[in-house]
């Protein structure tokens, strides 16, 4: 069993230092790793990124993150990434990482992702250059996630997790106005997850959404935006394939 702690949308600013650390310090008692599902800062400034970095530096569990749209706002995502990496956070964008959690190999594939909407109600790659680029960018993010999940399949993981900021499904947006769904996620992410394969999908971004959802392929999806889970993080106990075989 893998114990996965996850939270997104912590939106840290100058006055936030220390608010999450007491809860994060309890992680070794209840979790094997911490996933951060983007929007770690308010404006994506290096100063805000340093607040986040100090909040997670030296934790007793590995920390894996993707950035969110807020973390891009100051147009310095590479700098934000670097500051987090200096605090030993693994930051994924179209990449994967494999962690050894108490002898179990856990793979995490991540991308920020982007919008576009869901099947039958989605933006098309058509018309003005900006519109085409909008959809192409979303597709590049999803392709990056698919590639990262494919890599994990080759690396003998007992559990695979897809980590995104934008949502792969509409289920976990319930509570948000329908009109803004195309800005909250894309079915392209779900298609990547179902094609590449994963045991769990974790995202943030939709503050007014719902925690539980599922892709069309049956992968469980959890919206861990902090306003949704109303805690410093949530923990998911994920049973591995080997355990399942042992139970049979």
């Amino acid at each position: 069993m893998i114990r996965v702690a996850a939270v997104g949308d912590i939106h840290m600013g100058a006055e936030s230092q220390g608010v999450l650390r007491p809860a994060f310090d309890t992680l070794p008692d209840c979790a094997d790793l911490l996933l951060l599902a983007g929007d770690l800062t308010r404006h994506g400034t290096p100063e805000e990124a340093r607040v986040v970095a100090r909040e997670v530096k030296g934790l007793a569990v590995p920390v894996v993150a993707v950035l969110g749209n807020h973390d891009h706002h100051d147009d310095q995502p590479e700098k934000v990434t670097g500051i987090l990496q200096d605090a030993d956070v693994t930051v994924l964008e179209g990449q994967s990482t494999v962690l050894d959690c108490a002898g179990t190999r856990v793979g995490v594939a991540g991308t920020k992702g982007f919008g576009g909407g869901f099947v039958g109600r989605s933006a098309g790659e058509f018309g003005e250059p900006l519109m085409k680029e909008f959809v192409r960018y979303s597709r590049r993010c999803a392709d990056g996630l698919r590639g990262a999940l494919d890599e994990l399949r080759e690396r003998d993981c007992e559990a695979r997790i897809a980590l995104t900021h934008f949502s792969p499904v509409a289920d976990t947006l319930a509570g948000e106005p329908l009109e803004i769904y195309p800005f909250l996620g894309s079915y392209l992410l779900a298609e990547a997850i179902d094609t590449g394969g994963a045991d769990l999908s974790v995202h943030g971004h939709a503050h007014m959404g719902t925690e539980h959802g599922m892709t069309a392929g049956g992968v469980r999806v959890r919206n861990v935006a902090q306003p949704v889970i109303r805690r410093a993080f949530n923990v998911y106990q994920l049973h591995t394939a080997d355990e399942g075989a042992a139970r049979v």
Partner: protein
Amino acid sequence: MTGPAGNIEYRVAHLRERLAAEELGELGVRVEVRGQAVVITGTVPSAECRDILLRTAREELADLAVHSDVVVAENTSPDHAEELP
């Protein structure tokens, strides 16, 4: 006020633009017109953010009633895990 400048819907839209553009970078709260009043709901990262949010709203919508149900994010550890068999 009459004309577009006095239209409550546009004023709410301008408030939302300010909340996103200014120091809060806030896109996650809901601002809705209810009769002659405006209701603001959602979760913000800190009490300071809530103060700034409400101050900005009362500035922008000075002559309107502004009702708030904005809560501050909770930072406690969970008391149980969800099992995913």
